[in-house]
C-alpha cells in the first residue's frame, strides 16, 4: 500500500525555519513507522536525520511527535496511523536537525535528582547481596522500566513553557530510588524535588502517562513523590 507522510524538516545548514515536506512510500500495514521513515531516508532523501537503534522500543532513541502524539517510531505500526502521517520532533528541546533534538537539557534534569543508589555511609557493605523482599521490590518495579526516551517529559505542557522544570522522566527516576528499600538518599532527593523546579510544578495533565511507551504510570509516580515530600511517606 502507498503511505503518505508529512515530515517536519529542518536543516540548520540550509533552512531558516522548519517546514513540512510530503512523501509517499510503499509499505505494509504491519510495518513500523520507523521502517517507513527508513524508506524515505534510504530511497528518497538521505539527508533525513533521526536517531534510532534497537527498533523494538527498548533503547529509547526514536521518540517523535507522531500524528500529534509522542511515541516511539519503532513502536507504532502503519495500520494504526491515520494518513497523511505527520511526524515532528519532540517538543521543548532545541531541534538540531529534522527529528534530532538536543538531549542535554533532558539529561541535565535527570542527573539533577541523583538517580543512583545512595547508601548509608555508616552501613557496612554487605558481603553478599542486600536482602529485599519481593514486596519491597514490587513497590518501585514500574519506574525501573524507564528507558529515558523523553517521550513523557516532552509531552508535558509545564516542561514546554518552563525549561527549568526537571520534568516527568527525572521524577520517575527519582521515584525508582526513593522507594527502593536499599536506598537511603530519599531525603536529599525529596529536598531537590521540593524546590521550585521540582515535582510540585506538575499539574497532573497526564500527558506523560499517555506518552510513555513502557506503560509506566508516570503521573502516579509523580504523585507518590509529592506525597512523600509532603508527608514523609517513604
Amino acid at each position, binding site marked *: 500500500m502507498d503511505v503518505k507522510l508529512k515530515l517536519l524538516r529542518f*536543516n*540548520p*545548514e*540550509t533552512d531558516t525555519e522548519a517546514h513540512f515536506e510530503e512523501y509517499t512510500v510503499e509499505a505494509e500495514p*504491519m510495518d*513500523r513507522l520507523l521502517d517507513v521513515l527508513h524508506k524515505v*531516508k*534510504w*530511497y528518497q532523501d*538521505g*539527508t533525513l*536525520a*533521526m*536517531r*534510532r*537503534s*534497537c*527498533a*523494538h*522500543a*527498548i*533503547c*529509547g*532513541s526514536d521518540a517523535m511527535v507522531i500524528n500529534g502524539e509522542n511515541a516511539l517510531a519503532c*513502536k507504532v*505500526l502503519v495500520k494504526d496511523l491515520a494518513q497523511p502521517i505527520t511526524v515532528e520532533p519532540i517538543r521543548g528541546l532545541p531541534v*538540531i*536537525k*529534522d527529528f*534530532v533534538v538536543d*538531549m542535554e537539557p533532558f*539529561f541535565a534534569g535527570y*542527573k539533577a535528582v*541523583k*538517580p*543512583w*543508589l545512595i547508601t548509608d555511609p555508616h552501613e557496612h*557493605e*554487605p558481603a*553478599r*547481596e*542486600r*536482602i*529485599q*523482599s*519481593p514486596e*519491597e*521490590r514490587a513497590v*518501585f*518495579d514500574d519506574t*525501573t*522500566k*524507564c*528507558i*529515558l526516551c523523553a517521550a513523557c517529559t516532552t509531552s508535558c505542557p509545564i516542561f514546554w513553557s518552563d525549561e527549568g522544570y526537571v520534568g516527568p522522566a527525572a521524577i520517575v527516576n527519582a521515584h525508582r*530510588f526513593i522507594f*527502593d528499600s*536499599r*536506598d537511603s538518599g530519599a531525603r536529599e532527593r525529596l529536598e531537590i524535588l521540593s524546590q521550585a523546579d521540582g515535582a510540585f510544578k506538575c499539574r497532573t495533565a497526564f500527558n506523560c502517562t499517555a506518552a510513555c511507551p513502557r506503560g509506566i504510570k508516570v503521573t502516579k509516580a509523580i504523585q507518590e513523590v509529592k506525597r512523600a515530600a509532603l508527608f514523609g511517606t517513604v
Partner: protein
Amino acid sequence: MAIYHRYDAVIVGAGGAGLRAALEAGQRCKTAVVSKLYPTRSHTGAAQGGMCAALANVEEDSWEWHAFDTVKGGDFLPDQDAVDVMCKEAIEAVLDLERMGLPFNRTPEGRIDQRRFGGHTRNHGEAPVKRACYAADRTGHMILQTLYQQCNKQGVEFYDEFFVLDLLMIDGACAGIVAIEIASGELHVFHAKSTLFATGGFGKMFKITSNAHTLTGDGPGVVYRKGLPLEDMEFFQFHPTGLYGLGILLSEAARGEGGILRNADGERFMERYAPTIKDLAPRDMVSRAEHQEIKEGRGAGPKKDYILLDLTHLDPEVIEAKLPDITEFARTYLNVEPFTEGVPIVPTAHYAMGGIPTNVSAEVLRNAQNDVIPGFYAAGECACVSVHGANRLGTNSLLDIVVFGKRGGIHMAEYANSTKHLEISEDAHKPTEEWIASLMEGESDVRIADVRSSLQEEMMDNASVVRTDESLNSVLASIEQLNKTYSQAKVRDKGKVFNTELIEHIELGFLLDMAEALVVSAKARTESRGGHYRDDYQSRDDTQWMKHSFITKTPDGGTELTYKPVTLGRYEPVERKY
C-alpha cells in the same frame, strides 16, 4: 582540522562492557568514554533473560558446573582457563551489581532469585539448574541503567554520539583513536595511554537479526583495517526465538519458564533432538533443529516457514510478572496473543562469538602467539577471549561484559599509570580526514541501501544456520561484487550536522569487512562445531580443528588465516549430547 584531547584512558563504546570498564578506569586515572550512542541506547539494554552465576540461592550449584556447561555449550572450543576466570568471578560480579543497586527479582527470603536457562545444568548435564539471576525480562536494561547511574555518580566523562573511525598505532603500540562528532561533523583525536574497545557486535550483516541498526562491527572493523587479526569469526550465533519476519528477540527465559517449541503438527520436536533437556538445549542446536523442521516441511504458517513458541499452558500471571516485555513484543509487532496462541518464531542472528582477540586481562593480541599490543584492550561482544568458543550459552554475554569489562578497566588504568603518552603527530587525523572527504566528494547513482540489503540477504541465505562450501563460495563472490559497488558510492548529504547518511555509509563498509572475515574463516573450517554448521562436513573434527582461527587482512587486499590451539583444562572433548 581536528580537535585534540589527551586522556590516560579512552574507552570506546558505552554498553555494559564499556561502562563497567569506565567505573574501574575512572577511579584510577583520567578517563573518557567515547560512544556512538547515548550510553543508555546501547544494545546491552536489549538483553532480557538473565546473567548466570552459581550463587546457589535457589538450588545447589557450583562455579565448576557453570564452567563445564560453558565449555560444553561452546562445543569445547572455549579456552578453559578463561572460562574458569569468568565463572568464578561471576558470583562477585552479580553481587557487585546488586550492591550498585540493580533491582534483581527476589526469592521469598529476599535473596537474588534465579531461573533456568538453556544449556545450564546441575552436575555436568544431569538436569537444568536455576542459575540465571534476572530482573523480569529486562536484565540487560537494568544492568545498563545501573552502570550508567554509577558512572554519573562517579562523574565519568562522556563524549556521546562520537563515532570511532581510526586507531592510532605507533610502532606496534596503541596511542588512541580518531572519532567524528556526529552533531558537528568535526573530527576529534583522543590521545591516550590506553584504549579499550567495547563496541559490540555486527549482526546487521544478516537480514533477520535481533541486533540494533547500529551494530555494525565498528570496533573490529577498525582493527581489521589496521592489519590486525580477528579471532573465530566463523562462529556466529543464531538465537532460536526471533519474532517471525523481524528477528526481534524473545528471550530464552520464555522456555526457562516452561515455554515449548512446536512444529506445524503441534509436536514438541526438541524431544527428538535433545531428549534430556529438550527445549533448553543450547541455542545452536535448537536453531538447527528449527531449520531442519522447516526444511522437512513441518514449519507452521501458510508458507510453512516458522516455528511456534507455545506459552499458552503457562499461568498468565507468571508470564505477566516474569516475561512482560516479550509478550508485549508479540502483541505489538505480530498481533499475536501469547496467552491463547503460539508465537511465530525463527532463528535470528544474535551474537558474534568471535572478534578482537584478547587475553583474560582484556589485552588485545597481535597474533596467534599471544603477543599483546601495548595500550590496547577490548571487552564484550566485540572481543574474543575466548569464553564462548563455538557457541555462547544464554546469559553468558551479560556475564562476559561485566567480568571482562571490569578486568579491562583495571588493567588499562594500571598500564596507563605505569607509562607515558606515545608521541603522535599533529596530523594524526589526516588519513581519516582524507577518507571522509573522498566519501563526500562527487556524485554516484549507487544506493548504499541496495548494497546493504543485498549483503543481508546473501549472508542470511548462504552463511547463517547451515553452510556449505558452495554456499560460502557464492556469498564470497557476492561480497566481492558488493565491495566494488560500495567503493563507487558517494554520500549524497553534503552537510556536516548530524549527517547520518555518512555514518551509515561508513557502517556498511565495516559490515562488508566483517562479512568477508566471517565467510573466509567459515570456508576454511571443514568441520561442524557449535554455531558453525557445515552440511558438507557434518561432524566435529577434534584432530584437525581444536584451534581458534585468526584472520588478517593482507596489504594486497587479500586475507590470511593462522591458528591458535585451544587451551584445554579439566574437560576433555566428548560428544555433545543433551
